[in-house]
């Protein structure tokens, strides 16, 4: 679905990505882990064309997007949605208007149809009846839910999650993880998540990739990833406690 070939990127004089090769499987939840400052968010932004690589190529569904601009890039972006670290809700709009925003702007929908779709999504993420509130009135977890509702409302093929549980307490983080998994299993979109939540991510991800020294150190299904013999990766994933695996979807 998404393929990166030899992607290199230098930011602020620092070589962040040093030849990333990555193949994201369709319809699965893939999580990218790695130490702070390794460039995980930078990698995610390359997948949606927010950043262009200095070298290398990024393919989305077979289309090379790293040199695309304007309308052509926007066409590819219509297949995506992204949940940002801080949710990136428009603070001058209510929760309802935030979720309705892509429907009104991109699909030119109006009135009852917008209300129906927005209310449906708000209910799915557990924010029914909260549409009138402004982002500043929401807790961190509620903002993430609202961001997820906005990401889901266009029913995209691919959703990128940039550290969706940063700044949340463990219970809220688990609730957001469970919500992402439930939505992914229901709508079957391709999910790519950047996360620091180890070992929790092994319980929710189909595939895990580790970014190390600007390259993909290891990418494997969760069950195989935790069996790695690489001492550095093993230490990285074991330091926070025992690892549990994802249960097969019922």
């Amino acid at each position, binding site marked *: 679905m998404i393929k990166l070939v030899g992607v290199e990127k230098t930011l602020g004089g620092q070589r962040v990505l040093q030849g990333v090769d990555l193949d994201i499987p369709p319809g699965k939840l893939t999580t990218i882990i790695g130490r702070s400052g390794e460039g995980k968010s930078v990698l995610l*932004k390359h997948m*949606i064309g*927010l950043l262009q690589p200095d070298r290398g190529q990024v393919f989305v569904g077979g289309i090379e997007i790293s040199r695309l601009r304007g309308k052509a890039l*926007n*066409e590819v*972006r*219509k297949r*995506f*949605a*992204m949940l*940002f*670290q*801080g949710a*990136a*809700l*428009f*603070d001058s709009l209510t929760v309802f208007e935030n979720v309705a*925003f*892509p429907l009104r*702007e*991109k699909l030119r929908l109006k009135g009852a149809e917008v209300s129906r779709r927005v209310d449906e999504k708000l209910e799915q993420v557990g924010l029914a009846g909260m549409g009138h509130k402004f982002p500043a009135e929401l807790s961190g977890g509620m903002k993430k839910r609202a961001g997820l509702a906005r990401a889901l409302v*266009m029913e995209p093929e691919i959703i990128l999650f940039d550290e969706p549980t940063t700044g949340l307490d463990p219970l809220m983080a688990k609730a957001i993880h469970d919500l992402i998994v439930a939505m992914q299993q229901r709508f079957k979109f391709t999910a790519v998540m950047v996360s620091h939540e180890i070992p929790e991510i092994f319980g929710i991800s189909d595939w895990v990739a580790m970014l190390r020294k600007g390259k993909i150190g290891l990418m494997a299904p969760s069950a195989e990833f935790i069996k790695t013999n690489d001492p550095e990766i093993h230490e990285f994933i074991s330091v926070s406690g025992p690892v549990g695996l994802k249960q097969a979807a019922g």
Partner: protein
Amino acid sequence: MMIERAGTWGVSVILEMGRMLLFVLSSFAWLTRPPLRFVQIVKQLHFIGYKSTFVVVLTAGFTGMVLALQGYYTLRKFGSEGLLGSAVALSMIRELGPVLAALMVTARAGSAMTAEIGIMRITEQIDALDTMAINPLQYLIAPKLVAGLIGVPLLVAIFDVVGIYGGYLVGVELLGGNGGAYWNSIASAVEWKDVYGGMLKSVSFGLIISWICCYKGFFTRHSAEGLGAATTEAVVLSSVLILVWDYFLTSVLL
């Protein structure tokens, strides 16, 4: 070493100017593509224009009053109090109206524009627009540029009228000058080219304010300190450019 530093500085200034030019040209180019952001333009006009009216009226009133006060005593020395109206009106229409109104709009609306766009940049709201395949230049910047082009001339017109009435209040009502002479001297001295020149200035000042303030907010650094610096730079650069451009335009128009 000195030459190298000067060269590096020179190149960075030229690159920055190029980026600024591309920014404004791209934003205007996006205006020509559908959809027309009519609601956004009206919202920005409300913010830049309507919400600046109070501060503009206040500044204009006192500017006209102090002009009349100074002008009256100066003209009286030459027995020319009858020319007070034309002195106030020409100063207002040609210079003080456009420049002072633009500086007030920069301080009130320009700084707020930079802060708003800068916060949207820092909190990734601009990236969010991009990921939704909505061009931020078309959605955010172009309506502000249009609102600046329309709003500032309207505020300048209000500034001129209020300033002239402020002058009347002091020169005629307070100091006892002749009301008929006041209005008559305005009618005989003010020409179309004075009004036209003042409006031309106000349109270009409107563009300068929205252009510089939007640019500085759009490319703000990702920190609270960066946002503060961007807001300061936007206000200082807009104000300086207004005064420099005013000089060039005046030298061409006269």
